[in-house]
């Protein structure tokens, strides 16, 4: 017959301090609830604000430039990116790739040709193909080619369509735009000019510029430019998460300017994550406090039952068996407290998803597995700390 703990129970004098035991249970419940809610909310924020920028292969592409201040105004070297800046950025773990947006170093004009008769001083830029969202197979150029393929920002077409009527120009659709013939006029330093035929091959939602193949711009810069130095005033950055706090902190620290739309969620996310991290830490502190309170209660109980426990050890009861059984007495109540907290967290998540988020698809009504894992860990932690303490006290008695 297995040794029974039943006749030993009355020997443990729980005494009149039941109130402190209940306080510790309630404290533990509140602490665990706070901690679990914080973890779930933290995960909710991740899921809600995870991907807002135009993405390609799961990456965000954003352009950054240096902030021009009154002090740096007019100082090119301070407002352009150097090789060192690019290297530094490339070395960061949150950056998957960097490509400078190189612009023309000569005077450049764009003309609509016969269909859209206008001429304006403009600029062209080039960028690594992998950074462009729409790259048709025709987007390449080599010396001797008559036609230069162009990718323009969809925004530009929109702007054009806004002002075109007031200048008596025809508004154009996206499909017409992609077949539009343009004239690219490049000026030599002495004022002579060379004209190329340009063809819009695609529109881009991602890049706010007029993009020509790198081969063309490199060639043109060599041929028409007043300076051979190639400098980038804008960089395109490929990153896993444009809203990552590390990335945003880096940009702030370096005084880099970034498209606000693409990172504003990141700022909100940073603040919310900060709040819930703080709440999580507070919950953890409450859990620790409750565990401490309970350990005082246990110590008191053992001190009050010292004579009985000593006599049991004297009779031949194993201190290990006794401590295991004393600690085991509290397993059900601990599991119950944590399960109650898990249930309350589940209720909170359901209410948040249903009432606050109107069942948005990015979220689920169910708790994330890590919340359950934390709950399990907390049960194990509290039982382990109790067992260790009781064992230590009983071994000291034996």
């Amino acid at each position, binding site marked *: *017959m297995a*040794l*029974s703990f039943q*006749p*030993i129970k*009355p*020997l443990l004098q729980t005494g009149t301090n039941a109130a402190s035991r209940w306080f510790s249970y309630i404290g533990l419940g509140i602490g665990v609830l706070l901690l679990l809610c914080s973890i779930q909310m933290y995960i909710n924020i991740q899921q809600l604000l995870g991907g807002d920028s135009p993405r390609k292969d799961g990456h965000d592409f954003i352009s950054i430039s240096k902030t021009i201040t009154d002090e740096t105004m007019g100082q090119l070297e301070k407002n352009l990116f150097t090789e060192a800046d690019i290297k530094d950025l490339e070395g960061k773990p949150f950056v998957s790739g960097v490509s400078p947006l190189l612009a023309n170093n000569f005077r450049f004009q764009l003309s609509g040709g016969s269909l859209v008769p206008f001429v304006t001083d403009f600029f062209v830029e080039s960028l690594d193909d992998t950074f462009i969202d729409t790259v048709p197979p025709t987007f390449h150029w080599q010396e001797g080619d008559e036609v230069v393929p162009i990718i323009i920002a969809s925004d530009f077409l929109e702007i054009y369509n806004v002002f075109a009527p007031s200048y008596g120009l025809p508004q154009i659709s996206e499909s017409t735009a992609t077949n539009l013939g343009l004239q690219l006029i490049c000026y030599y330093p002495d004022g002579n000019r060379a004209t190329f035929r340009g063809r819009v091959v695609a529109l881009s939602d991602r890049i706010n510029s007029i993009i020509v193949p790198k081969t063309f711009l490199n060639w043109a810069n060599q041929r028409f430019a007043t300076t051979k130095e190639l400098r980038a005033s804008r960089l395109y950055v490929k990153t896993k998460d444009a809203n990552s706090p590390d990335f945003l902190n880096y940009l702030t620290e370096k005084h880099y300017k970034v498209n606000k739309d693409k990172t504003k969620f990141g700022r909100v996310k940073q603040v919310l994550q900060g709040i819930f991290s703080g709440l999580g830490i507070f919950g953890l502190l409450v859990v620790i406090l409750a565990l401490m309170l309970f350990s005082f209660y246990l110590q008191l109980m053992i001190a009050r039952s010292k004579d*009985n426990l000593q*006599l*049991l*050890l*004297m*009779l*031949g*009861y*194993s*201190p*290990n*068996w006794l401590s295991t059984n004393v600690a085991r007495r509290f397993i059900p109540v601990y599991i119950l407290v944590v399960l109650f907290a898990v249930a309350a967290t589940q209720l909170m998540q359901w209410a948040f998803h249903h009432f606050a988020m109107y069942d948005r698809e990015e979220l689920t009504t169910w708790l994330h597995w890590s919340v359950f894992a934390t709950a399990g860990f907390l049960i194990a932690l509290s039982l382990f700390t109790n067992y260790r303490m009781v064992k230590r006290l009983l*071994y000291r008695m*034996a």
Partner: protein
Amino acid sequence: MTITLQEVLPTYFEESRRHQSEIWGKQLTFNKGEYIKIVAPSGSGKSSLTHFLYGLRNEYNGKLLYNGQDLHGYSVEDFARYRKDHVSIVFQDLRLFPEQSVRDNLELKRQLNPYHGPEKITEMAERLGIGSKLSVKSRICSYGEQQRVAIIRALLQPFDFLLLDEPFSHLDDNNSKKAMELMLEEAAARGAGILFADLERIDFFPWQRLYHL
């Protein structure tokens, strides 16, 4: 199964005790099945000796071996097994759970390593005249009754040696004899030895070896 004393002397005793005593500072071996009587006046260390042998205290020089193993090297778990399976004791100061009934006191020992069934508790209690006290809290019982409870408690487990530290100090001759008979029967059933420490010789204990402490 043997208990060996190798020049054991309490640390709080003077060295001269080695010469005055037949046990302190001597080399002795007690075998399972032997009945040993130890006669000792007050203050000569009866309780110290039984407590050393039971592993409750260890303030002594020299060595105490159980089956060749030094008790100094025992862990708390080893002592738990030693007390549960091999050595039983009747304390001079009884040591019962005051708030538990006599039966609960006995059951707490019996269930640890049941040598007897629970019915034996009633039988032994009847035999020693405390059958009617089984459901009474032990602190309500007289010293004589408590002493009989302590004696029965020591007999509910298996043992190789039974240590008795003035087991009849609160009993009259008639009750002492009954208790002795029961202990001898139980020891014989286990083939166990008895180490009986008391102030004076007791005629109804059939000792084989007698020592003066």
